[in-house]
């Protein structure tokens, strides 16, 4: 087992275990911190794939900005870990079927999803900053513009929805 394999296993384990922590943790702050760890694991996997730009962006944008925002909101709402209601217990049959489906899916993927041995995968075009930026301004110019509109309506929607319901009526 080479160094790359050991690193891959370590980061994969970190990602999966902390992702489970996000779901299982009853305290919202701890769940958000688990999400942070999971994102660090994923960015480690990207580094192993030579996709340094993606790894960097993931740390910078998601771990740095988005999770920090989550934490702010959790603190703002002052949600306590014990305030979440206990989920209803599922019937035994549903649990057995769900577990069977998940295990069957994973098993079939392990058995049949093997990729053929051979040359190592090539690095994607957008893995480095310069070609990535170049593509954004040429090939993918239209989706970038559409995303601009997406962000605009998201912003307007948040303003509309967060305005006081009994606030001043729009001119009717």
């Amino acid at each position: 087992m080479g160094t790359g394999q050991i690193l891959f296993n370590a980061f994969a384990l970190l990602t999966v275990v902390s992702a489970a922590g996000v779901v299982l943790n009853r305290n919202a702050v701890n769940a958000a911190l688990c999400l942070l760890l999971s994102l660090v694991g994923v960015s480690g996997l990207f580094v192993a794939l030579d996709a340094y730009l993606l790894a960097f962006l993931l740390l910078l944008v998601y771990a740095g900005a988005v999770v920090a925002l989550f934490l702010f909101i959790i603190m703002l709402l002052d949600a306590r870990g014990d305030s979440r209601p206990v989920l209803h217990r599922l019937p035994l049959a549903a649990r057995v079927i769900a577990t069977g489906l998940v295990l069957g899916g994973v098993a079939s993927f392990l058995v049949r999803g093997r990729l053929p041995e051979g040359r190592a995968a090539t690095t994607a075009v957008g893995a480095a900053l310069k070609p990535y930026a170049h593509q954004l301004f040429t090939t993918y110019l239209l989706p970038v513009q559409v995303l601009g509109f997406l962000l605009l309506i998201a912003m307007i929607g948040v303003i509309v929805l967060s305005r006081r319901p009994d606030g001043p009526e729009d001119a009717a």
Partner: protein
Amino acid sequence: MTLEALRLAAADNLWGAIMPELMLGCIALLLLGLEIVLPRRLHGVIPDVAAAGLLGTLLGLALNWSSVAVGRETFNGLLFHGTSGQLMRVFFVLSALFVCLLARVTLPRHTAPRVEFHHILLVVTAAMMLLAQSNHFVMLFVALEAATIGLYLLVGYFRGSTASLEAGLKFVVMGALSSGLLLFGIVLLYGVAGNPALPGHTTQALHFAELSRFLAANPDNFVASLGVVLVLAGVAFKIGAFPFQIWVPDVYQGAPTPVTAFLAVASKGAGFAVLMALCGQGGAFAAYGWLTTPVLTAIAAATLLFGNIAALTQHNVKRLIGLSGVSHAGFLLLGVIASAQTPMAAGAVYFYLFAYLAASFAVFGVMAHVAGQDDSEQELDHYHGLAKENPLLGAVLAIGLGSLAGIPPLAGFMGKLFILVSAFQAGARALLAVAALGVVISIYYYFGWIKAAFFETWTPPSGEGAGPARPERSPVTPVAAFVLGALALASIAIGFYPGPLGELLTLR
């Protein structure tokens, strides 16, 4: 990167080809500008500007029907402009126009801001138009998200209403799940098609034609088939097909009536445009017909049965129309399945969509007028005596519901007939029987609604606490009367004389 290389790459960005979408985007920005510039008392004209802009776009589309871009790829393969894309553009602009009309009836009863509503509506319409013409998974996903995020906002738009907020939250959660499934499927397809160890691998795996070539070279790849199934599941969420229909009744009931209409017609049309691009003849997944046909067949049969049987017991008309919309999605799926083998089926699907548009907006127009202050509580009882008190609304409702039920000679009947004939040609006999059964069941609940409007008389509840009174109906303005009458006439006229729409059936 030299300047020359950049120029070459930008040469394919043919902005003229997406003029209608650009127009809608500019008008959407104009609305926001007008809200700042105009004095408050003139703000009432801004929704009219939106409607006028949509009309202008429709006119522009009609005048430039066979523009230079039709039949070619633009934006480096991100978009493909075909006849079906042109049709879906008209479909979405028409839907948005009717939603504007419904909003004139519904929104003044609430304190929700109106300018932003129309702004979001126009942006969502433009995104759907791009979605229907996308030829690349990046474009598809970005346009789909732009449309879906706009719809999240519109569904929860009546902030004062608990039902609307609940619907918005449920729609966000289910929409995020479906986007996740779709994205996971796309990533699997991209990964496996870019694997250098496989025959026919490509670096442009997200382009539909390239992907189709790769899938044809690897007709039995497990990871690719998993990706195909996940993409189909993500799209099935958007069209509300079984087993991904659980969000439909609550979201349709809670959303403001114009938004329910937009969800029922335009959003479903967008989902089917994507399905036709993926699973239709020459679509991206054409080589995986051995997988998509059985999966879609099972989904279609379950959708037809579930939608119709669940709609039987509904008393809330918004839930009823939502669940009946599920069964219409099943019917359209039948057309998609047939379109892999019969060229006529693609035309039948588009014909059905237009017939569904005319009939649905006729019914939603009546619903918007009958609904009271509480937009989510629209019961069948509120329709008692409608035909006697307002014959126009009664007649429009009867024609719209009759067309949805598929009563000859209305447009809905012709749509169902074309789909059934093409399914027969494609040899989907078992599914044909299920569809016929679904039609029979659907007649029961559609006629229950007509019966409530025509044969029951309204008796006000007597005594203390005898239940809420019937909500006040909105007066029908001349414009609304004209449009509703035109929709009803269109349902009749398309049924008798399919005309140019009928020519779709001979299209490839």
